C-alpha cells in the first residue's frame, strides 16, 4: 500500500500539452477518482503513474520514492485496462496465475491463491474455461482479480465500468467499493462518468484540458465547486449555468443573459456577484432541484417566467426544460403537473444560487 505524490507533472506530445503542472496528494488506502471529459488527460496521468508513459516535467513519488528509473515489471502496480486486456489465449486459471507464475512461486501456493481469488470474485466455476469465453461482466471481474492477486502497492483502473450494461454497472460499483475496503489498497480510478466518481471515490480530482480543476471529497465538490467547470460537470442533471453581463438598472442589479433573458439578482447571489468589483460578466448557477414552482417562499427568491419546452422522464423524476427567451432552465417537476407549452412561473432561491466569473470561471463570493 502506497501513498502517491504527483508533483507539478507535465506531459507533452510534441506540440500538444496533455497534462499541465498537475499536483495531487493521494494518501495510503485512498480511493481517488480522476474525473474529466474525454481527452482531458486523465488517462495520460494514470499512464504516467503506471510508468507506461514518460513524464515530461515534474515527478511522481510512491511513499516518497521516485520510480521513474524502475522498469514497469518491477513497479508492482496493478492496472485494469478499459477493455480488460485479458489473455484470451489462456484459461481463466492461467490468467489469474500469470502474475504469480512469473515470480516463480511454487505451484501449490499459486493454486491456493488462485482459487481463493476466483472464489472472492465469484468466477470459480469458470476457472478451467478459456478466458475468451467469459461474458463482459465476468471478464471485468477476472481483470480485477488478475491484478489484485499479486497484491500491488496501488491499483489503477481505466474506465473499468464503461463497457458494462447499466444494471451490472450499479452492482459492480458496490462490489468495487467493498473490494477496495477489503484489499485496503490505494486505488486510482479514471472515469468520465461523474456519477461513478461520486459514488465510489473518497476524493475526486477533476481535470480539464490537462489542468486540475478541483480536488476534494464528492460532497465538498458538489456543495462548493471552485469554478464553473466543476459546477457544470458534477451533478446529474447538471447545474444550470446561465451566462450574461451584469448591468445596474434603476438601482437593481441584473444579469443580462446572452440569450435575451434577464435575471434580477437579490440576496446572497447578488452579494456574491458584487464581491469582486472587477467582474462585469459571469455565470449564474442554480441546481435543478433547487428551482421550485408555486408560491414564493422568501423575498430574496428570484421569480422567472418561462414556457415548458421539453419534459423528460428520468428514473423516478420528471425533468422539465423551461424556456426563457432563448435560454433554458432545467428543473424537476415534482408534482407531475406541468404540460408541454404551458407558461409557468418558477423561483430561484438566491441562497442556493452561485455566482461565477465569466472570464476566469472561478466562483465568486467565496472567502
Amino acid at each position, binding site marked *: 500500500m502506497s501513498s502517491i505524490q504527483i508533483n507539478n507533472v507535465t506531459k507533452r506530445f510534441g506540440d500538444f500539452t496533455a497534462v499541465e503542472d498537475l499536483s495531487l496528494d493521494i494518501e495510503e488506502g485512498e480511493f481517488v477518482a480522476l474525473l474529466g471529459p474525454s481527452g482531458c488527460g486523465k488517462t495520460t496521468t494514470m499512464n504516467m503513474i503506471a510508468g507506461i508513459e514518460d513524464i515530461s516535467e515534474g515527478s511522481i513519488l510512491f511513499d516518497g520514492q521516485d520510480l521513474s528509473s524502475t522498469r514497469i515489471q518491477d513497479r508492482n502496480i496493478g492496472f485494469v485496462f478499459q477493455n480488460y486486456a485479458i489473455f484470451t489465449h489462456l484459461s481463466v486459471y492461467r490468467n489469474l496465475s500469470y502474475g504469480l507464475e512469473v515470480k516463480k512461486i511454487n505451484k501449490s501456493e499459486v493454486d491456493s491463491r488462485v482459487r481463493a481469488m476466483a472464489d472472492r470474485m465469484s468466477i470459480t466455476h469458470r476457472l478451467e474455461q478459456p478466458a475468451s469465453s467469459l461474458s463482459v461482466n465476468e471478464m471485468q471481474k477476472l481483470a480485477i482479480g488478475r491484478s489484485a492477486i499479486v497484491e500491488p502497492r496501488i491499483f489503477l483502473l481505466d474506465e473499468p465500468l464503461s463497457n458494462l450494461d447499466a444494471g451490472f454497472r450499479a452492482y459492480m460499483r458496490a462490489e468495487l467499493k467493498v473490494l477496495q475496503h477489503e484489499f485496503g489498497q490505494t486505488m486510482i480510478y479514471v472515469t468520465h462518468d461523474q456519477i461513478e466518481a461520486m459514488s465510489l471515490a473518497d476524493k475526486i480530482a477533476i481535470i480539464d484540458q490537462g489542468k486540475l480543476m478541483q480536488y476534494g471529497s464528492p*460532497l465538498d465538490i458538489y456543495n462548493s465547486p471552485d469554478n464553473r467547470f466543476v459546477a457544470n460537470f458534477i451533478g446529474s442533471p447538471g447545474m444550470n449555468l446561465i451566462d450574461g453581463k451584469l448591468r445596474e438598472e434603476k438601482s437593481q442589479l441584473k444579469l443580462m443573459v446572452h440569450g435575451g433573458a434577464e435575471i434580477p439578482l437579490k440576496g446572497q447571489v447578488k452579494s456574491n456577484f458584487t464581491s469582486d468589483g472587477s467582474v462585469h460578466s459571469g455565470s449564474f448557477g442554480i441546481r435543478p432541484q433547487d428551482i421550485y414552482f408555486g408560491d414564493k417562499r422568501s423575498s430574496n427568491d428570484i421569480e422567472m417566467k418561462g414556457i415548458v419546452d421539453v419534459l423528460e422522464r428520468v428514473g423516478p423524476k420528471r425533468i422539465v426544460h423551461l424556456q426563457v427567451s432563448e435560454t433554458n432552465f432545467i428543473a424537476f417537476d415534482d408534482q407531475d403537473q406541468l404540460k408541454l407549452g404551458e407558461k409557468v412561473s418558477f423561483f430561484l432561491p438566491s441562497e442556493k444560487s452561485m455566482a461565477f466569473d465569466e472570464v476566469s470561471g472561478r466562483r465568486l463570493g467565496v472567502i
Partner: protein
Amino acid sequence: MNAIKIKNVIKTYPEFTLGPINLEINKGEFFGIFGPPSTGKTSILKLILGLIQPDEGQVIIGNQDANAMGVSERGMSMVFQNLALFPHMTGRENIIFPLKEGGASDEEISQQLDMVSDVLHISHILDKNPGQMSGGERQRIALGRAFAANSHAMLLDEPIAALDARLREEMRVELKRLQRENNQTFVYVSHDEEEVMAISDRVAVIIDGKIAQLGTPDDVYSRPNSISVAEVIGSPPMNFFDGQFSDDSMFINIKSLGGRLPVDGKFKQGSKVTLGIRPEDIWLTQDGDKYDFELSIISVEPLGGYTILNAQVGNQIIKIRAPGQVNLAEGSNQKVSFDQRRIHLFSTKGKRL
C-alpha cells in the same frame, strides 16, 4: 395512420430467434426500443430499413408491403452503431452525401448543412476527415448525415453511445427537439434504459428476442408487467424479495426481512409471490413505523442531489435512493419502510399480479 408496422415478423439466428414481433409505430412518434445487448434490437432496425429480410411475417411501410421495396426507396435515414462514415470524405462531404445523391439543389444542401452543424456543434470539424476526429465528433457527423437527408423516418442505433455523459444529456434534448420540430418519425435503439425512457413517446422492451412490454415510459416504469422488465428498467434496479401470502391473504410475509406488509386485493392464500420495490420507494424512518424493517448499511454513495445507500440483508444487497445528502455511517443499522402504494407483486412465474 401508421408509418411503420411490423406484423408477426420472425428472424432466426444461430444464437437465438427474434420474434414474433408485432409493432405499430405512428407517424411523428419518437419510438424507443430498449433491451440488453445482442437481443435483436439492431436487427429490428435493419428489418425496417430493408438491409435484412424477415424469415416470416411482414414489414409494412406507409401502407405498402416493404418486401418489394429496396432500401433506397423506403425514405429513411439510419445512424449506424459503427457510424459507417466514408473515411475518404471530409465531415462536410459525408453530411451532404445523401442530399447530393438524391439530387437536391445547392441551396437546399447548404441550408440543411447549416442547420445540422448548428444544432450538433460540428461547424469546426466539417473539414476534417473521420480519421482525424474524436469518437464523439464522428458520432455527431453521422447524426448530421442522417438529419441532413431530411427523410420522413430516422432509424437510430445507439447514436450517442460514444459521447461523454454531459454531452449525451445535451444531445438527448436536442434530438427530441429536432424530432418534434421536423415532425419526423424516430425509431431509437439503445441499451441505456435511462436514455430511452427519457426521450421516447413509447418504448418497446425487448427481452430474449420478444417484446416483453410496450407502452409509454410512465407505464413501463410504474407498471412493469413482469420481473424481467422490472429488473432492467430503472437505475439502480428494482429490489426483489421472496414472500408468501398469509393464510388470510391480508399480508405478505417476507422471510429475509423478518417482517410483513399489508396487501390490498384478492390473492391466493398461502401462495408464493415476489415483491418488488424501487430504491426511491424505500424510505428511511426514524420512529417506529408500523411496518418497518431494520437493515445494515454497508456503503453510502453520495451523488449530490440524492444518495444511494447499499444495505445488506443476508446475502442480498438492497439499494435505497434517499433524497438530498444523507449522513449515515457504514455498518450502522437503519430502519426503513416501503411506500405501500408502490409495491410491485409478481407471481412465481414472473408475471405481474
